[in-house]
């Protein structure tokens, strides 16, 4: 049996935790090999070991049958191993091309030959169907294009063993389709792929074999052809998982959020939300479906007071909050699960307890006559940690030390606990494993049933379809269509998101 990669009995420890314990992973030439596990199972760690970012405490690595010692990424590169990292490794203010050529720049007479580099990048991107603008700056392009730039980085270096760490987490359905096509192309060219993803459907669709790890321990490797979603999930979590989002039909009442003719500009003064109208009522979940970059981020920021509004109005629970600052909006009764948990959601250097009162610290009982009451703060945190199953050593642990999934749970606990009339959830399950997703979806529906108005913004169509009651499709900053969730399907939404109906609508009117 010819393996391109053999990782045998790998052990990797971090202070206080064994991230990989005796894991074995064998990848065959020309296959797409899935690596599956819950959040924090140790997948990224294992791959970082393979890529030379971490040195394992024990175990051996063989590449194409030869024992190797991958001391740093350069060695990995030389062995033809390329990795697309879970958290993008892109320099924000460099162009796509600059990011791709970094470290192996084509030069002419000592200076970078940028023209040649751009041509090369264009060529590779054409070959594999990875649409990018070689000259665009990373900070100006969509997450999808950033992802493609990451893949191009490995291809540019001629890697033939590719590691994709959760590549689809941030992509839209068409982009995912595209990526799958890309992967097939790559295999055809003789490359091998290790794919990490939490989406079982994707594994079933593209992978040949799948290795499952649970809490740092290897559970086994199975042929995908013999597996089902349920069997994989069970292997991964160790119990049965239900994928259906159980919910009763909504019974919406009063309008809580009412947006009229909203116009919002982005930081470059381009208006990205155009004349947007939207209503959300008590007891319903309205999902915003749309391709990334169509104004979702700015809409949420405008609703929560983080971004100035150009024109139009926002009304929440009968109050005109158009000009309100974030604190006032919070006090009106808005909860917000932000899209970027590290940027907005948490103060990573604060303890979990402190983070739990990030908006309410100034109120009783956390503050009395200007003096903080840490005891009540931590008591509250304890309760929430229990209730929302946040896995943390203690409420006094810095938020930084929690895994992403648990950080997200902490945020959700905080936002839901305030019982807001309106809960805005922006990509609440991004990067989470199925267990956690299940939990969060259940929570959202529970809140709906308690009579809260919920606005769900997600790039994942399946999530929008399963959780929402009504779906508003956003295209170029405008709501182009509102449909009932149970009367539509992915195909129709996909078309709407691509803007096709908008044109149809325009012709009729």
């Amino acid at each position, binding site marked *: 049996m010819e393996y391109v990669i053999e990782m045998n009995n790998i052990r990797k420890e971090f202070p206080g935790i064994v991230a990989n314990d005796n894991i074995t992973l064998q990848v065959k030439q020309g296959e797409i090999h899935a690596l599956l596990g819950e959040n924090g199972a140790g997948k990224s760690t294992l791959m970082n070991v393979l890529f030379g970012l971490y040195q394992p405490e024990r175990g051996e690595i063989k590449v194409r049958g030869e024992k190797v010692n991958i001391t740093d990424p350069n060695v990995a590169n030389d062995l033809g191993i390329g990795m697309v990292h879970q958290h993008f490794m892109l320099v924000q203010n460099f162009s796509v091309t600059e990011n791709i050529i970094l470290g192996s720049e084509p030069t002419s007479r000592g200076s970078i030959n940028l023209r040649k580099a751009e041509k090369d990048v264009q060529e590779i991107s054409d070959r594999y169907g990875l649409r990018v603008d070689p000259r665009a700056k990373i900070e100006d392009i969509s997450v999808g294009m950033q992802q493609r730039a990451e893949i191009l980085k490995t291809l540019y270096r001629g890697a033939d063993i590719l590691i994709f760490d959760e590549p689809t987490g941030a992509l839209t359905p068409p982009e995912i389709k595209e990526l799958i096509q890309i992967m097939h192309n790559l295999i055809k060219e003789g490359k091998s792929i290790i794919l990490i993803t939490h989406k079982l459907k994707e594994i079933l669709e593209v992978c040949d074999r799948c290795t499952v790890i649970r809490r740092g321990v290897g559970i086994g490797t199975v042929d995908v052809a013999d597996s089902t979603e349920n069997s994989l999930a069970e292997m991964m979590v160790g119990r049965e998982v239900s994928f259906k989002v159980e919910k009763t039909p909504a019974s919406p009442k009063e309008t809580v959020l009412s947006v009229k003719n909203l116009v919002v500009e982005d930081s470059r003064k381009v208006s990205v939300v155009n004349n947007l109208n939207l209503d959300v009522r008590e007891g319903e979940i309205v999902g915003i479906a749309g391709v990334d970059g169509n104004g979702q981020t700015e809409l949420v920021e405008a609703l929560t007071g*983080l971004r100035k509004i150009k024109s139009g109005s926002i009304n929440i629970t009968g109050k005109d909050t158009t000009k309100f600052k974030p604190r006032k909006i919070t006090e009106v009764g808005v909860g917000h699960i932000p899209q970027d948990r590290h940027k*907005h959601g948490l103060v990573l250097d604060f303890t979990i307890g402190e983070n739990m009162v990030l*908006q309410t610290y100034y109120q009783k009982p956390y503050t009395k006559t200007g003096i903080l009451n840490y005891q009540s703060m931590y008591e509250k945190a304890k309760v929430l940690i229990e209730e929302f199953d946040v896995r943390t050593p203690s409420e006094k642990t810095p938020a930084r030390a929690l895994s992403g999934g648990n950080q997200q749970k902490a945020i959700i606990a905080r936002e839901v606990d305030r019982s807001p009339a309106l809960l805005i959830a922006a990509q609440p399950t991004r990067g989470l494993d199925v267990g956690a997703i299940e939990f969060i979806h259940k929570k959202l529906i529970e809140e709906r049933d308690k009579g809260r108005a919920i606005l769900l913004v997600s790039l994942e169509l399946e999530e929008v379809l399963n959780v929402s009651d009504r779906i508003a499709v956003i295209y170029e900053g405008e709501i182009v269509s509102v449909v009932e969730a149970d009367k539509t399907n992915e195909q129709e939404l996909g078309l709407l998101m691509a803007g096709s109906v908008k044109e149809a609508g325009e012709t009729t009117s």
Partner: protein
Amino acid sequence: MMSMLKGRAFGITIPIIAILFGFLAGAVIMLFSGNNPITGYTALVNGIVGDTYQFGETLQRMTPLIFSGIAVAFAFRTGLLNIGVEGQLIVGWFTSVYVGLAIDPPMIIHLPLAILAGAVAGALWGFVPGLLKARFQVHEVIVTIMMNYIAMHVTNSLIRTYLLDSGQRTGFINSSASLESEFLSELTQFSRLHWGFLIAAAACVLMWFILWKTKKGFELRSVGFNKNASLYAGMNVDQNIVLSMSVSGAFAGIGGAMVGLGTYGYANILPTFTNIGFDGIAVALLGASSSIGIFLAAFLFGGLQQGANMMQSQAGVAPELVEIIIALIILFVASSYIIRWALDRLQSRKEEK
């Protein structure tokens, strides 16, 4: 539990090791330059704690250092680097002395008023860079550097034009505004130790209280760690930046008042910076921006500066050596990572055996 204990012990071990290294390096330099390190260090220690006079002077010297350290640390906690403590201290010094000179109410009013005036002046000097940072995103480092020079030139000019008494200074403040303490001074054989030392110790507690016990402190720290999340949580980030710089400046200004009302009793034309403000950066960072740390770091600094004189006069060691030692200690403390690493190594080797 074990690891926590270990952590706590590490917290003290590292600075101590760093200080030892610093002195060791100083000893090597002394040997190379033909001095006897034992004589040198004996003199240094005598110069710090040798008798009550030296000790009093050491405490006197550390008083403004505590304030400048607190000032730097306070801004630092809010994510701001206040290089302008020097200037804030200078205006605080001048203003408190001006109030000390200009009016003559009873002490119970006059002294607090003069200190307050110093605080307000310092706060104003911190307010400007804070406002510019919040409003126009102007980097506080440049503005505070510039404000230092402005402070020095403006106060010098004000003294020269309006308050010059003899030589290069203003007249003496009225005794009702003086922090001088006959009691403390006599206790320490006529050192210049004054009541300001107690105020400085109280300021350490105050800083700790503001940052860790008040809701404003919660906000300031939150803004310091993550502006975006603070904004998201409804805090007024800009206001907190301005506030932090102003409070920082106020601490620095009080530090200036300690010098003006306590140590000297006048303000003089400064030919160069006092360096108390710049030393504050080192004090704060050496003290890990914590109250206790600042107090101890200020003691070390004040002591070394005081002891340097004795080292020079008794052991013939050039005072620059103390500067070198101070620099090395700062470097070693800053490099605590490597010390910790080495200690870890030692520990694990022991455990293996």
